[in-house]
């Protein structure tokens, strides 16, 4: 039966190649445009760390200019912490399972081979807990020990890509890396790791993960300045890095792993009593408004999905709707033209249901073809997006979920488009259409 319907479908499609082609093109263009923008949206709004996203919290302390407007939500508070506060929270007895403060710096890496030119590398300076907290996979070695977080130890962890560039992908643990005039011991090499978006820093979003990781103490010791957003509201008191570290400038991201609501309450209390204590010392002049937000809420607060993309998704969905309406119109015309053929089939004994199912089958076949062509168009569309935007390289691949969605949307769209015309045709009284023959 199926193969007979398939044969009928192809016969019918071939009989009217222009109309059939028009339908497929319309569907494919609609699907292609929508899937292009939707894939980018899907990847931008994806959960970068699904199994832990509700136990990892971004911490915000409202330590800012008392003359600023009052705080109403987390979005009004600085996304980053001062060095002073981050240090205190790391060293204190905060009721969290794990915590990590972090910021970005850049270094100049000098390859062992003198003939090779030095190059710039992005570094995340943080604590050893970073790797366990964020479930970072290691290819070789392991994170640095706890004592490296307290003492000034010259150790680094490399990304997989940097290890490939410098050591051809070999196990480089125990070897040294030269940066500036300093030598560092390599203690670990990461495996492939590219959370999208990079949730732990609201300013990096969709870029590549850092080239290497270094204990924060070491970076401070080498007076390496943060790159990225540094915000200050109070003049810096004191000279050099010393003064900068003691200042009210914010530039560190701070994360805590907290396993349940009870602990979250404790942690919030802890933050509040800390800020109250600090107020005695003349800091935190604003009403107390400390925030802790899990990963996905944090992504929302930071508007990680670009507004342009949201607008494009809506407009391309409307475009798809136009394409579907177009297809309904053509199907309607096409099935009206088929009236006498259908009447003949009905007269020969096919019941309404059989006619209905057979025609629906034809319509879905068109949808399937449109969907497949549409995936090809979406692929082209994503190449276009990749060439138009900088730093979208992690946002332009069609994953399985998207491929299945594309086909499902196409078939559903075509069935939706075909339902009315097919229903109307199946209802025909055969006699009236046979007479004139």
């Amino acid at each position, binding site marked *: 039966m199926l193969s007979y319907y398939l044969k009928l479908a192809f016969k019918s499609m071939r009989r009217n190649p222009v109309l059939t082609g*028009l339908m497929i093109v319309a569907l494919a263009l*609609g699907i292609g445009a929508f899937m292009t923008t939707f894939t980018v949206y899907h990847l931008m709004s994806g959960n970068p760390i699904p199994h832990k996203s509700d136990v990892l919290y971004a911490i915000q302390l409202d330590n800012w200019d008392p003359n600023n407007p009052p705080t109403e939500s987390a979005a009004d508070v600085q996304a980053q912490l001062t060095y002073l506060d981050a240090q205190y929270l790391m060293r204190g007895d905060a009721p969290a399972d794990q915590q990590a403060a972090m910021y970005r710096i850049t270094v*100049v890496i000098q390859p062992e081979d003198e003939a090779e030119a030095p*190059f710039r590398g992005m570094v995340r300076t943080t604590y050893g807990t970073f790797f366990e907290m964020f479930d970072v996979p290691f290819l070789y070695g392991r994170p640095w020990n706890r004592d490296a977080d307290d003492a000034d130890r010259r150790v680094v962890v490399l990304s997989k890509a940097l290890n490939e560039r410098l050591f051809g992908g070999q196990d480089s643990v125990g070897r040294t890396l030269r940066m500036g005039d300093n030598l560092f011991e390599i203690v670990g090499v990461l495996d492939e790791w590219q959370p999208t978006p990079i949730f732990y820093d609201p300013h990096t979003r969709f870029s590549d993960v850092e080239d290497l990781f270094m204990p924060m103490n070491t970076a401070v010791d080498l007076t390496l300045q943060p790159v990225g957003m540094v915000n200050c509201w109070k003049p810096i008191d004191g000279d*050099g890095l010393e003064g900068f570290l003691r200042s009210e400038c914010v530039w560190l991201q701070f994360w805590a792993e907290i396993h349940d609501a009870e602990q979250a309450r404790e942690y919030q209390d802890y933050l509040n009593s800390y800020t109250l204590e600090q107020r005695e010392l003349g800091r935190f002049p604003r009403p107390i408004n400390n925030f802790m937000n899990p990963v996905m809420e944090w992504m929302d607060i930071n508007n990680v999905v670009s507004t342009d993309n949201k*607008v494009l998704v809506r407009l391309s969905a409307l475009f798809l709707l*136009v394409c579907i309406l177009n297809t309904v*119109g053509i199907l309607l*015309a096409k099935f009206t033209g088929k009236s006498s053929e259908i009447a003949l089939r009905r007269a020969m004994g096919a019941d309404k249901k059989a006619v209905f199912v057979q025609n629906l089958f034809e319509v879905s076949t068109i949808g399937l073809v449109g969907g497949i062509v549409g995936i090809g168009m979406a692929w082209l569309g994503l190449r276009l997006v990749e060439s*138009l935007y900088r730093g979208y390289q992690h946002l332009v691949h069609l994953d399985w979920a998207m491929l299945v969605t594309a086909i499902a949307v196409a078939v559903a769209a075509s069935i939706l488009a075909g339902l009315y015309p097919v229903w109307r045709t199946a209802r025909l009284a055969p006699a009236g259409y046979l007479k004139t023959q």
Partner: protein
Amino acid sequence: MEFGPILSALTRNKAGALLIALQIAITLAIVTNAVYIIKQRADLMARPSGMDETNTFFALTVAFAENFDVKQTWQQDLEQIRALDGVVAATSIASIPLSGAGWGEDFYLDPKHPSNETVGFGNFMTDEHGIDALGIQLVAGRNFSAEEITYRGINDTVYPPVVLVSQALANSLFPDGDALGQLVYDEPNSPHPTRIVGIYEKMQHAWPTVRSPDPDHSAIMPQRSLDKQMNFLVRAEPGMRDQVMAEAEVLLAANHNRLVRIVRSMEEMKRRYYSRDIAMVKLLSGVIGLLIFITALGIVGLAWFSVNQRRKQIGTRRALGARKIDILRYFMVENWVITTIGLILGVALSLVLNYLLDTHFQTGKIEWYYIPVGMVFLWLLGQLAVLAPARRAAGIPPALATRSV
């Protein structure tokens, strides 16, 4: 006119006509809103930065050796670059125009009431060649002298004794127009005032966005950063930019204790800065193009089909005395009626879509004239699309009426 028969024929094929009308309605809504967004972005990108974008380029370098002599390197490098053939001016610069990031600072006006009297601005920091290297015009006062240039450490928040400000910043600081020679302050109750010694016509700060309230609030302080990140801005004689750029890169790279990170023309910089807006313009234009294509195809397809369906009736009409032009006009008018119904619906849809986009994504309120212009365009599109099928209908011979199929 033959509205009567057209309408009665339309009511027989309600679904088909309604579908086309709906398509036209949504098309109008998308096209008006998309064109509006495109126009917005085009305006944004067309804003002049104030500087000479055509003949300038910049170089970012970063030193990595431990005992790197920043001050001496500045002197040497600038001297060498200025000696190159075709260089108009070269300066050290802290914030790169249109880079999206830079030094954002505030001036305090009244040291006694500091809280509500600050004005924010982007600080470029150049030496005495800054004005020439940027290619901006002083409209009042004087430029820095070489002796006024100082070095600024990362933590220095103390402003130097003199500053140049843009006309826009001068107006915001001193609305009475007497900014030249006035004092401004780096912090409340500051012991070291800064005097405005010069005002230049215009220069955007380094991160002008759609929502920047004051993109032209900028100032130039006579300072050089002591940081190991050293940025150069160079202006070449017309037509010499690329040559100077290549020579300067070689020159800077000769120092092996540092890395020349980026050497890039301001034109390229501007393209990169607005790349998201350029992308939005291209993607929206693409969607508009495809949409018009699909809608036109839909009109052609359905008209073609309905002509085929009515071959016999058309033949009969012709046999009864209708001229070719009557048949042609019938289909044109039919299309006009359908399009008009769609456009009336489309006006409402356009406004709703604009309202939704503006409420959720702050795209702004569409100007009224986008809608009538869009309507005229779609009327023409409909008439154009139906022309070929209508001419085919007009070509049906009257003799067809006499044949039985």
